[in-house]
């Protein structure tokens, strides 16, 4: 979510900071004078009162400390009475208190803001007695942070505003991120994605959007499934007349003279091509509709050996060879599908391999299990390297008709490999020919 979240976040933050800041500034501007005046009055009265009481107590011989402490607790004012050397107070007086007291005796009453911004008032009561009053010290932390100033208050507004804006922006944009991710997955082909459970706690409008999205995904999924079924049914239907055609063809052969041999052969060849094509289409639709097949341990080394041997047998009849360089490996998979995939790629390679050359089938264990098939044929134009996996794609119409194949072998291989969570790609090998690489995960 690159641009919506920051925009919402920043605008909320700015708004809160401005409003909060405005409040703080207005308040600071409205009240300072009054506040300072009131404080001075309060403190003067307190000092006088407390100092008098303390002196009465000392005159009686009591310790005024308790009184002064009670006073401090009730009013937040600390009053220290300095008589000559002795200082009575609610707690230990700081040096500043003593110093101010001494100065008051010499110079008269004074108010100063000392000690962490807490005002201090020193008043002489008699020729050797001074009373110093101080607003209770703010906590160390607040002092350290400069917690009494306008700047500090603005900072707090800024930070709290930031946190709240962040949470608010996240609340609003997270469901949208969710929705966007789901949309991307649909675009990549996964139609099973649904967002409603995730969006249940989102804003009502967004949740409604989520429900609409789900309905849409469901509809598209249904349409696609219906199309697959149609393709499958049509292919099945095509088989019946084709079966009858072939028997009728043999009947014709039985009744016809030897001249009719070649043309009937030709008809038979075309009928065989149709059969092969229909078979491949049916396999492909089955794979496209397919959910992940149950995965069992497959001895890929042995499977590759079987395929290589069979393919070599077949290839020798047309003057080519298939050679295996295999490593033993077992991986989770569906044996039939893997067999199909590898066979298709190998047979494809044999078809395009020039006479007297070899097709190499290599199985190796790297991060994944890697199966490489390489021929020394003409390769494929760079811009068509991905297209060859598209069903019925032809690189060059004429050549493919001569070399046979229905054009679905690689598409089937790709679907089969994908159902295993693997991948397949083609590249032109160094030294000529096509290299097809299949990668399969070693563990489920």
């Amino acid at each position, binding site marked *: 979510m690159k641009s919506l979240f920051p925009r919402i976040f920043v605008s909320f933050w700015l708004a809160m900071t401005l409003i909060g800041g405005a409040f703080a500034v207005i308040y600071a501007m409205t009240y300072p004078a009054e506040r300072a005046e009131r404080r001075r009055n309060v403190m003067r009265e307190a000092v006088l009162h407390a100092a008098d009481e303390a002196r009465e107590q000392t005159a009686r011989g009591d310790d005024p400390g308790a009184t002064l402490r009670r006073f401090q607790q009730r009013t937040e004012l600390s009053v220290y009475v300095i008589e000559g050397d002795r200082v009575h107070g609610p707690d230990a007086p700081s040096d500043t208190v003593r110093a101010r007291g001494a100065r008051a005796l010499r110079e008269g009453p004074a108010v100063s803001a000392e000690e962490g911004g807490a005002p201090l008032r020193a008043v002489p009561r008699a020729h050797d007695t001074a009373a110093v009053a101080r607003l209770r010290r703010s906590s160390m932390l607040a002092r350290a942070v400069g917690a009494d100033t306008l700047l500090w208050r603005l900072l707090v507004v800024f930070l709290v505003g930031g946190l709240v804006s962040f949470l608010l922006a996240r609340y609003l944009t997270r469901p949208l991120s969710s929705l966007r991710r789901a949309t991307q997955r649909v675009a990549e082909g996964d139609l099973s994605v649904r967002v409603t459970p995730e969006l249940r706690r989102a804003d009502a409008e967004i949740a409604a959007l989520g429900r609409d999205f789900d309905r849409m995904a469901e509809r598209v999924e249904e349409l696609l499934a219906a199309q697959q079924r149609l393709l499958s049914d049509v*292919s*099945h239907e095509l*088989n*019946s007349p*084709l*079966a*009858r*055609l*072939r*028997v*009728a*063809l*043999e*009947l014709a052969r*039985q009744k016809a003279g030897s001249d009719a041999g070649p043309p009937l052969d030709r008809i*038979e060849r075309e*009928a*065989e091509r149709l*059969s092969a094509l*229909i*078979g*491949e*289409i*049916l*396999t492909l639709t*089955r794979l496209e509709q397919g959910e992940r097949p149950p995965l069992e341990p497959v001895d890929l080394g*042995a499977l590759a*050996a*079987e395929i290589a*041997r*069979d*393919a070599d*047998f*077949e290839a020798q009849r047309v003057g080519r060879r298939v050679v295996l360089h295999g490593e033993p490996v077992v991986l989770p998979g569906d044996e*039939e599908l893997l067999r*199909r995939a590898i*066979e298709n790629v190998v047979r494809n390679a044999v078809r395009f391999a020039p006479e007297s050359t070899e097709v190499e089938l290599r199985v190796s264990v790297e991060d994944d299990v890697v199966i490489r098939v390489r021929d020394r044929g003409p390769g494929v134009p760079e811009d068509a390297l991905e297209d060859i996996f598209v069903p019925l794609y032809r690189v060059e119409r004429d050549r493919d008709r001569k070399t046979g194949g229905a054009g679905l072998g690689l598409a089937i291989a790709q679907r089969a490999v994908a159902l295993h969570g693997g991948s397949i790609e083609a590249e032109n090998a160094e030294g000529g020919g096509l290299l097809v690489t299949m990668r399969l995960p070693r563990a489920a």
Partner: protein
Amino acid sequence: MPEGPTPILVVDDDVELCELLTEYLGAEGFSVESVHDGRVGLTRASSGAHALIVLDVMLPGQNGFELLRRLRESSQVPVVMLTARGQDVDRIVGLEMGADDYLAKPFNPRELVARIRAIQRRLEREVRAAREPREVLAVGDLELDVGSRTVLRGGEEVALTSAELTLLEVLLRAAGTVVTREDLSERVLERRFSPYDRSIDVHVSNLRKKLGPTPNGRERIKTVRGHGYLYAAPSR
């Protein structure tokens, strides 16, 4: 000895296909009865009136596999299955259920005839063997009576299809040595081995399942990768 056309039952709901097959197979020396429905099909197939059944997997109502399974409860008559293209699993399931062979529709009719004839030849050999002096192949706890086409494991009879029995016979005769898939294809299926044909593999798998391990818990039929199969000679 020639006894007139061989009677064959075709069970397929495609009426026109059956008519064409009747004519075609008729000229090849078979007499065809065709049936278009599963229930009637089962009745006729169990009747014993036919030398071989051609059975379509995709029958409306009762499907072909069901029919085959029920037929096998009472009859070992050879069955060739017609399966759908692109449905590899059909072949394997069919063979596991006891079909002798299969062909994917749309099939090459000459291929159908070839397979029917192969099965016929095997049956003829069985008939001839039954007339020979009794020959029993005994290996470990198995006894295979070649003439009567029965197999005893530890004295108990094991029901095997014709193809499985022939396969076991070949392996037992060569017990302890490897028989290649090419050899097995020729001797059991009467056809040249073609690379992507897995019928032998499936028949071996069925045989393994039906026979189980030896009393010592060892595998009877070993796969020798790159060569073929062998029946393990008992270690004694």
